[in-house]
């Protein structure tokens, strides 16, 4: 594989730790930078499609109380309850990683710390989900 013009020529790259794959260790591929991008993209698309549906189901508030309650009732069962944990998980990741992207773009040290920032994102995600998921699942399963 020939390096695209503009990247550092082979042999001039700073010494690297153990490579994870043939392409790992180049600027983005195979490491934290790539996975944060992949996850950001997948969560962004998932949230977008949910938003389309969510605007439509909320619009039923303008039809009749019965119509709205019937549709929202289909969200209030254990299967959807677990799905909601996934949805909130996707939104929370996208939100924190979005802030990471903004820091990488605007903060002068952002690019130097992008890898660490990814683990900060994961840490904040875990904390937020610990605050949300148990409480939500108790609501879903105990009423």
């Amino acid at each position, binding site marked *: 594989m020939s390096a695209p*013009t503009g990247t550092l020529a082979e042999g001039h790259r700073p010494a690297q730790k153990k490579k994870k794959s043939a392409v790992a260790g180049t600027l983005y591929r195979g490491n934290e930078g790539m996975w944060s991008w992949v996850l950001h993209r997948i969560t962004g*698309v998932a949230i977008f499609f949910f938003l389309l549906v969510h605007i439509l189901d909320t619009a039923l508030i303008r039809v*009749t109380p019965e119509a709205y309650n019937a549709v929202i009732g289909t969200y209030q069962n254990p299967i959807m309850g677990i799905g909601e944990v996934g949805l909130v998980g996707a*939104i929370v990741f996208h939100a924190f990683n979005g802030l990471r992207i903004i820091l990488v773009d605007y903060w002068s040290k952002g690019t130097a710390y992008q890898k660490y920032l990814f683990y900060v994102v994961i840490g904040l995600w875990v904390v937020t989900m610990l605050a*949300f998921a148990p409480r939500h699942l108790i609501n879903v399963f105990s009423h």
Partner: protein
Amino acid sequence: MTTIQAPRTPAVTRRRGVNWEKWGWIYMRASGVLLVVLIFGHLFVNLWVGDGIKAIDFAFVGGKLSDPFWKVWDTLLLWLALIHGANGMRTLVNDYATKRLTNGILKWALLLATVILIVLGTLVIYTFDPCPAGADPSLVASFCPVAN
């Protein structure tokens, strides 16, 4: 010594006029910061406080949407999130839909869906009546004259 091959990129010849792509890029970041606040507030009030998802019904939404604060909150959420999401999807269409026709169709579909849902959602927020005439009194918010 590190050698960087020259020229790395051809000189950029900018077209004149507004750089929409740049403003789109800035919009993704500006709206993103606001959306963190708007979405976390939205999820906190609807899913975390009280009985969470189990408390959501017509009367619950009626209570929120009769308060000007939540009307403004939900309007901002609707506009900012939908435009942010649609603009993000436009990036994906540009990345993956390389055929000119498919690319065009997908972008028009995105634009159409965005405009329709923004108009629909905004109308719902501002024409909504939490105490509709003739509604079942057991389903409406407690502040409605007919509620029981």
